[in-house]
């Protein structure tokens, strides 16, 4: 997952794409993931941390991870 460099994110989950003017609201987990990705953390480390902290099965997380990537692609937020 590689977010476009110009994408602005906030801790509260507000995401802004200055190239298009689009803005988005991320729920807390999505906001956390995007912040870590922006900080350079790789996908495996982010997922391992989520599995450690949250009550979720690995298979479910993988499925939802793929879905998040699909949303980011759909919204044109990935490089």
């Amino acid at each position: 997952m590689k977010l476009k460099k110009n994408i602005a994110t906030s801790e509260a989950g507000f995401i802004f794409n200055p190239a298009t003017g689009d803005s988005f609201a991320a729920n807390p987990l999505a906001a956390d993931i995007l912040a870590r990705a922006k900080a350079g953390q790789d996908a495996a480390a982010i997922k391992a941390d989520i599995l450690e902290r949250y009550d979720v099965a690995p298979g479910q997380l993988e499925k939802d991870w793929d879905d998040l990537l699909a949303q980011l692609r759909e919204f044109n937020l990935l490089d």
Partner: protein
Amino acid sequence: MKLPYERPTLRKLTAGALNKFGPRAGVRPVTALDGVAVGELVARFGSPLFVLSERQLRRSYQAAVRAFGTRYPRVQLAWSYKTNYLNAVCRVFHQEGAWAEVVSGMELEKALLNGVPGPHILFNGPGKRRADLERACAVDAVVHLDNADELHLLLDVAAGRPRRPRVALRVNLNAGIVPQWDRFGFNLENGEAWQALSRLVASGQLELVGLHCHIGTYILQPAAYGAAATKLAALAQRCARELHTVVQYLDLGGGFPSTNTLKGAYLPATDTVPPLDDYAEAVAGALLGAGFKTDDLPLLVLEAGRALVDEAGSLIGTVLANKRLADGRRATILDFGVNLLFTSFWYDHHISPTREFSADTEPTVLYGPLCMNIDMLRESIALPLLAPGDTVVVHKVGAYNMSQWQQFINLRPYVVLIDQAGQPHVIRAAETLEYLQQLEQVPAHLLG
């Protein structure tokens, strides 16, 4: 202790005019129905599951009686069987005092088996067969005549009987609304109804006891009922004056709405549907002002269906899967579809989760499990981040679903009634493959 998990999701923010109308925003979970936990119901009876509240059935019936009975001295409700003819539901209404309004030979037999006396059964419908009319005459049900062919068929059936069959004439009329329903009964304005009345009275073989009209379905204009009542009352007075026949009852039919929101409506039905009191006010005002002497006021009959049963029914279902459509929209597949929730073709049903979620919601397309493109329950609904295995409750599904449901691709599920003490009772068992195949036969050359 690990944190509760909700899938990561994004929602595009769109600027637009704020809507100050509509219900409170946010999704509230419904964890129990009539005090019985949804989880317990699903554990006992499986999912999907229809649940009916006996308390609400009685409450709705009593509210309707109160609305009309406090405004007009002689009121009788006739339960519209086609709306939901599960015997337990019918018997609740009959216990409350309802007659039966039936529209086929099968429904007539159901009403008789439910203990309704023949004279308290009103036989409507446009498609009565000779055998149906013979049966209705034998049990002294009131035949609501729909057309001239039926009138002549009944005259034929009536010949030689010791007792004259009791009949009412179905009348269609202009009540000031569109569309004007003219497929049921004889038209008033073009003189057809009067011609039929004259003929049936002149025959001497039938006893005219009532006049009936049914102006439509989900009618949102109480004044239309007032207009219909005025016209029926005038027709009854003309019968007394010119045919020397006293009409005992005026039947204003049904068509009263529930608070389900019609597809395409701008505002939710809870904000726009008039209370039943408004309909009662219009009808009672028209009849009391029609010029009848107090002792000659006809009985007012109402064939309420949806307004009595819709709110008492709920459908519990389970999320089978989530997916994302090609345009990025979220889609959720439930274990029930249009096969069970027929009314999703008409309504944007209110659907609740059954556990607490965060405030985050996602616009979602709701699909049923059928391998058919039409199997869509909601085109767009804001729901929390449901996961496979989560349950939902669809509200106000008591009318038409349990009579118009289809055995298609899946078997039909349990229906339970929660009694007034909070005890669930099975009132229709879940279907089995054996039940489904009972009537099938395989020719010998296809066996082996």
